[in-house]
């Protein structure tokens, strides 16, 4: 941990971008870096992190943009070294299949479960609570007794 803190402290000095920074390059760098994960502080994007390595990688991405590399080429360059882990949007492949389809599978399961539960309930409500014979008996019992005076 201390090593990271020290690294970050070192980074401050090297952080200042070149004075005549090209705003187009900087914007592309920012857009790209926001989609990339910092490996040192893993819940920060490369754009947000001040870790030493993040600064280095931003500088590297900046010089690649200046060299005319496409975003896809730069992403490929990074994943070649650090794996899909650096991408906040991992590509769809067999190892990430569950990641991409999991939420939809869960929603589909929930919808099916809800549907089944509702159908079961409707069947229960629709089923007459009493048979015809029971109904007749109940009505007979509830009918006011002609012998007694009205309440």
């Amino acid at each position, binding site marked *: 941990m*201390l*090593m990271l803190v*020290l*690294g970050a402290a*070192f980074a401050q000095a090297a952080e200042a971008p070149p004075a005549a920074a090209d705003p187009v390059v900087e914007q592309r760098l920012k857009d790209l870096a926001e989609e990339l994960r910092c*490996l*040192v502080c*893993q819940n920060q994007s490369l754009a947000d992190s001040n870790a*030493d*390595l993040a600064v*280095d*990688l931003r500088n*590297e991405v900046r010089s690649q943009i200046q060299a005319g590399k496409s975003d896809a080429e730069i992403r490929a360059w990074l*994943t*070649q*070294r*650090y*794996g*899909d*882990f650096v991408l906040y949007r991992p590509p769809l492949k067999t190892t990430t299949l569950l990641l991409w389809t999991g939420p939809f599978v869960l929603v589909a399961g929930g919808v099916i479960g809800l549907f089944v539960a509702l159908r079961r309930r409707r069947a229960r409500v629709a089923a007459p609570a009493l048979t015809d014979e029971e109904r007749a008996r109940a009505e007979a019992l509830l009918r006011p007794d002609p012998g007694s005076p009205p309440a």
Partner: protein
Amino acid sequence: MTRFLVPLAIFLVLVAFLAVGLDLKPREVPSPLIDRPAPAFELARLDDPARAVRLEDLRGQVWLLNVWASWCVACLDEHPVLLEFSRSSPVPIYGLNYKDQREAAIAWLGKHGNPYTASVVDAQGRVGIDYGVYGVPETFVIDREGVIRYKHVGPVTAKVLNEKIVPLIGKLRS
């Protein structure tokens, strides 16, 4: 009966997922470089800046690449392990002195001992990036053909050395 079994089953599945999750180490990012050729480099030696070490020079032998720096606190944890290993090691250990200052690095080796056959200087950390280094210390096992066969992120412990690295070296050398 099912009214109890279903929630119990869901609960057990959840517990299983959480138990596995507890054991995962998110700091250890799987490296895409395993079983890939080690990235080429040509770097000056720490002890003699006039002499360079190239990846090709190391071909034909199994060797360890250990990324270290004098500012790296965790490197001190693994240092005794590496020193001990270097005394009986059948393979050379090369150090990649990562984003360090030469004098500080030399002083550090003087103070704590030098387990390295040689250290090379990666002052800008460019070679480090090629090797996907993100948390110093890191250790790579590279085979005779120059292919990376294993990577360990963080301090090498005696356990990692004896259970992973030494058996792998034995296999690669046989």
